[in-house]
């Protein structure tokens, strides 16, 4: 959800609402925190049910989101725009993959954070 709100905030900002920038920064922080939580959950999944792909995809997303954060910060829009779109696609894909292939019951609660 936080990821999908980021382009909304960016659009609000560029439409001339200065507060949109603060929302966009808050959203970026939120995405970063959620990413780290998801990475932790993915480690648990790997350790407990020996399923590695959630970890690697989460790691890729966290690294991408970190690059996205700094690209936005320094105004490298050539990277920020396409990377943002790629990250949204990645988040959507991981979301679909996780929900299409449910994990054993006891892990569901943990994964739902992502």
């Amino acid at each position, binding site marked *: 959800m936080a990821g999908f709100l980021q382009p909304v905030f960016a659009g609000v*900002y*560029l*439409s*001339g*609402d*200065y507060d949109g*920038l*603060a929302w966009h*920064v808050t959203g970026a922080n939120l995405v970063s925190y959620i990413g780290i939580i998801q990475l932790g959950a993915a480690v648990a999944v790997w350790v407990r049910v020996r399923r590695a*792909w959630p970890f690697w*995809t989460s790691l*890729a997303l966290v690294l991408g989101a970190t690059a996205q954060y700094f690209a936005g910060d320094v*105004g*490298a*829009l*050539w*990277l*920020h*725009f*396409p*990377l943002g*779109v*790629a990250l949204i*696609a*990645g988040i959507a*894909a991981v979301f679909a*993959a996780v929900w299409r*292939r449910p994990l054993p019951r006891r892990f569901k609660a943990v994964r739902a954070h992502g």
Partner: protein
Amino acid sequence: MGELRTSRRRLLGIGAGLGAVAAGGLALSAAWARRPAVTGEELRSEAELPQAFSLPLPIPPVLAPVESGAGGDRYEMVQREVEAEILPGYATRLWTYEGSFPGPTIEARRGRPVTVLHRNELTVPTVVHLHGGRTPAASDGYPTDLVLPQGWTGHHAHSMPDDRAVVTDVQREYGFPLDQRAAMLWYHDHRMDFTGPAIWRGLAGLHFVRDEVEDALDLPRSDRELPLMIADRAFDAEGQLAYPSLDPTLTGEHGVEEPFLAGVMGDVVLVNGAPWPIHEVDTGLYRLRILNASNARHYELEAVAEDGRTVPLVQIGSDQGLLAAPVRHERLPLAPAERYDVLIDFAGLPVGSTVRLANRLGSGGTAEVMAFRIAREGASAPIPETLADDLPEWDRSEAAVVRDLAFRAGRMEDGRHGWVVDGLPFDPARTDVTARFGEVEVWRLIADVHHPVHLHLVGFRVLSRGGRTPLPHDAGLKDTVSLRPGEAVEIITRFDGYRGRFLFHCHNAEHEDMGMMANLEIV
């Protein structure tokens, strides 16, 4: 088990596909996108260009008043076309003030009024704006306050009606009270829809204001104080100035050919009207009064000695005069219409060597601006540690109003691509911002691409850039601030001085001509 394996393989395939598409997109962007972002399209000269650093740096002549009295100084200027040798061996037609490009320099003192009678002997209407001047609205050069040339029959001097326009025939007197801090201002044409091509053809000059605060500092003077008007141009095969106007007579349809909608840049860098000039200096301290008079080109200046060492540029002043303390730059960014007052110390450099003033945003010819040749030993002088103590300080808490203003691409009234402020193209008849006389306001300016935003009448302080502390070169009192792509800048100012209709606009001259201006009514 077999089913799981297939779907795992499929998942991996999907993941790899997505990854490849994302990586491809990023690689395409990295290869295609311009880094750093460009601010226009470059015209290529067809004329033969001189070797860099082969021509001397001209210093614009200082204009003598026609009359001086207790009430101030009175000047007269004729705007006329001349031919001048800018490129060796070519006679280039220019539109000039008093026959020179840059126009003659006016030297003024704070609080001593200057009046300038401008006579228009060109083929198009003109109007003069003193950029950075604290000038009453009637003399501020509003874009529709046109001075029509003799026999002008054009039905539409510009694209929109304006009931408040004060149009005169052939000549007009502008009055400048100059009750303002010492600074280097510049005057240029500000005709509605046609400012870009008019400046390009030569209608720009310098105007200094001096005061006691500056006098007390003992800064480098006379031939150690160098005005540097930097402007890029391009020349056709006949050596005439090339500019992609839709109507080259500048009497009909305004605007530029489509590839140049973001801005017009030339491949020749002129300083005071000379291509990549060289200037002889000694090993002492020099004061450079730098103006970027280019339509759309940004520069990042770096002084480089022969051994590759960077000679620092010590900024002592900004658009609206001296700073409180010097700011040392290795590289100095310079957006259109910005001015920087910098000291450069040639001490310790070998006699006979040269120092290049390079443009780190340029490539090919535009990577160079000019050079200094160290011709002899000179006396050294210290750089003052403190400068002016008369900078206005405004606090956010004083602000009566906080405004958000967006500068972005949009459509002009006629539906063509243009540039807009808060979604609207310029209309002289519409008041965009009404400010109360004497009140402090905070403006939060937001950009899609590069926009150097200029406010008439006032100087402002930069409060923040991208939500953070301003950059080192944002110091002091400014009248033009360079917004970078996607960036927001907060500025603070007090709207005092004069009531009336003023402008604020983007100083990318092509953006300005294609809608990116708005009215500021001070009541």
